[in-house]
């Protein structure tokens, strides 16, 4: 099970702030593509991914038990 955290416009598009996804062993880019297909998220090309609170590369693998956060372009400060 993958715990997915949503923020900003993604949270509003999903109508919730977290998802539980029953996939594993996917690469980050595959995982994003799967979410885009399933939830119709917009602007996902600009969204970064963090695995367990660390920014991840497109070819990093996502394992069961990971917390995956989708990080839209940040605008703090």
């Amino acid at each position, binding site marked *: 099970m993958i715990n997915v*955290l949503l*923020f*900003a*416009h993604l*949270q*509003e598009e999903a109508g919730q702030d977290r998802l539980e996804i029953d996939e594993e062993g996917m690469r*980050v*880019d595959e995982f994003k593509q799967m979410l885009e297909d399933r939830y119709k998220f917009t*602007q996902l*090309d*600009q969204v*970064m*991914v*963090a695995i367990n*609170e660390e*920014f*991840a*590369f*497109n070819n990093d693998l996502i394992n069961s038990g990971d917390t995956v*956060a989708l*990080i*839209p*372009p*940040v*605008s*703090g*400060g």
Partner: protein
Amino acid sequence: MKEELFEIVDHPIQLENLIKKVESRNAGAITTFIGTVREWTKGKRTVYLEYQAYKPMAVKMLATIGEEIQSKWPNTIVAITHRIGHLDISDVAVIIAVSSPHRKAAYEANEYAIERIKQIVPIWKKEHWEDGETWLGDQLENVPYHDGKPHIKDEKDD
């Protein structure tokens, strides 16, 4: 150092607290940056803002910025607090305090911190205008990251 140097809070930020965190007998200079909510942006009027954070990761990233600064400007002390939630015009969203034996480093490190916050800290701002609302995207007009993540510096970069 007892107090936390890097914090995400949902209440007003006290400037004096941040100064206390960075004070030192060997500091000759303390710079602070206070980011406030501005009413007018390019002719559009903001009514209020809402900030959201991925809190544990945001704190980690603030600490990463602190480490980057320590390695680039030795002998500085940095503290950063970012507020989240509903903010009205003139409310303080972020304070960065840097102390240093010499002033040049205190200015440079402080400006570096705010630039990095806008690159790597997972905090989002929703702008509520008179006629609508939006989550603001990347305000840096960066090109998309080639490898899917922003550059996080480590000591090897220096």
